[in-house]
């Protein structure tokens, strides 16, 4: 069913009858084709949103079973009950969508150990270079996050983590490359001349601290983590992996130490430009 061109017509309940569209079709098309912001841009009214919510309730028999019922939940949020139900309204819609689309959402918490959980992987952004950490390194990262959570009193099974090891490795690589890009851009425009990342077989102290901070590594685990990371990074660079961006590139010297090769700073000054004068 080519549904989208008819959206404006379907806003009219009379037209809706003519098209013989079931509420389930409305909801499916609504969620599949339009994001909430799309709806906003297209000016789809709140009346339409209410229609969808009412329709979904009618069609699916969905009942509000999980709303914030207890005073404890109320206290945790700091919001009043009506505010919570405003959020919960969207939650209901989300559950309805799963119901209608036949997605087997199990409600289980997603963690590395339970790879059978129904989950939808986040899309990975394409990144230049092909560095990928080993499973061991990614697991160290996850283990440290879990230890931190445990110390904070959050059960390790309830942390938002990548849903499987491949995703964990992708996320780790993405975060590491982004880290070096961020440092590279700062260095590129800085007066500092030291481009060294590793020295005498270890990351320089500034990078050690920043890397542990970036990946939530506990001090007791930092030596193993940093050693493993340095080893994998130098191996990858030695085998031809390229880590680069507009900022420049990571390279290995003859002693297998990692250093930045930076793109010269770019200042796009227009010589003919004359700045205006602020007169009030």
């Amino acid at each position, binding site marked *: 069913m080519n549904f989208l061109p008819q959206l404006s017509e379907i806003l009219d309940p009379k037209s809706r009858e003519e098209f013989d569209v079931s509420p389930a079709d409305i909801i499916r098309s609504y969620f599949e084709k339009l994001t909430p*912001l799309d709806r906003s841009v297209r000016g789809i009214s709140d009346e339409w949103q209410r229609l969808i919510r009412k329709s979904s309730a009618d069609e699916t028999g969905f009942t509000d079973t999980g709303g914030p019922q207890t005073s404890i939940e109320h206290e945790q*949020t700091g919001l009043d009950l009506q505010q919570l139900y*405003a959020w919960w309204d969207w939650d209901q819609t*989300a559950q309805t969508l799963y119901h209608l689309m036949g997605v087997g959402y199990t409600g289980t918490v997603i963690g590395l150990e339970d790879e059978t959980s129904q989950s939808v992987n986040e*899309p990975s952004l394409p990144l230049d270079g092909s560095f990928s950490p080993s499973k061991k390194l990614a697991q160290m990262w996850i283990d440290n996050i879990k230890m931190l959570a445990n110390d904070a009193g959050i059960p390790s099974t309830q942390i938002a983590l990548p849903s499987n090891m491949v995703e964990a490795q992708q996320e780790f690589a993405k975060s590491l490359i982004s880290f070096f890009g961020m440092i590279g851009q700062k260095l590129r425009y800085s007066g500092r001349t030291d481009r060294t990342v590793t020295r005498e077989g270890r990351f320089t102290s500034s990078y050690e601290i920043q890397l542990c901070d970036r990946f939530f590594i506990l001090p007791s685990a930092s030596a193993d983590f940093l050693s493993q990371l340095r080893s994998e990074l130098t191996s990858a660079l030695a085998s031809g992996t390229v880590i680069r961006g507009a900022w420049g590139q990571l390279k290995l010297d003859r002693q297998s130490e990692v250093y930045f090769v930076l793109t010269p700073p770019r200042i796009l000054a227009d010589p003919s430009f004359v700045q*205006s004068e602020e007169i*009030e």
Partner: protein
Amino acid sequence: MPRFSYIHLSDTHFCIEPVRRNALGLMRRLPRNRIDTYWRQMRTIGYLSLAKPASYIPEILIGAAQFCLERPSVDGVIFTGDLATTGMMTDLLVARSFVSEPAADGFVTENGSPTLNVGSRNIYVLPGNHDKYINPAGAPNCIHFAMQFGSLMRNYRDGVGHWVRRKGNAHVGFIYADFTLQTRMDASDKFFAVYGQGRVKEEVLRELKDRSFDLRRRFEKITLVWVLHFAPFDCGYSLRLHDYGDFIDAAISLRVAATICGHTHRASKTSVDGHTILCAGSTGCVDAEEDSRIQVLHFDVGKEIHIQRENYIWSSNEQEFVFLSRD
């Protein structure tokens, strides 16, 4: 023909917790990703994290500071609101550091955080709805923004401010207005709409028009540009600027050349009866991770005014903003 050029940033959502996400942000993502994240987040840290307004991605804001450093040939940087994710001091101070703290080395401050304050850069700011939240629950009309950014809000009184710049014989006047909510009652409902809606208040619009008449009277052939946070077009229930039609009618009748705004986190350029509306995308908010924008606006002022916009988008591959299009 004299050219006035500005870098246009909006909706950075600075915050004490950089990558905090919330339900409003999640709703802008693809449904399947949104639901997955929604459930994970709710189960991880509960409803509170969903209610807290969204925040920013540090890498992208470092890129924004770099972008501004690389472009000295502009007349200033215009920031159309939602600098911070709430009007609480903890969040506003992060935004203030980005805007005001002087650069010590390249585009970073002494403590290593990015800043726009390089050389004698002119920076102009106005508040957005987030900047006026008293608390994460979105209670409106916090006064902290004016305390922190008052020195950057030129000639501000009665909800309206302005600045005028001259190049040769050409003058351009920018007049900005604060249409954020005064009370929860100004919104369509007191619970959901209060987070994102604004309202064109009669007294502020009157002051905006009076200020325009005044500048027209004092500067012959001045080109006027209006600046606000909210988008003066239909952008849905949750982001609505109530009575935006009155604003547009006034802009057209006063022959205002353009309106600059933000708020929607989606860049657009539209025209209503010859009046151009330049809406900025978000620069670095977590819900705009894959569509973070910076705009460069050029106003060529002669017998007629020509407005051109260059659009730049964040590239995670390059770790900087790259040219996207010109319109």
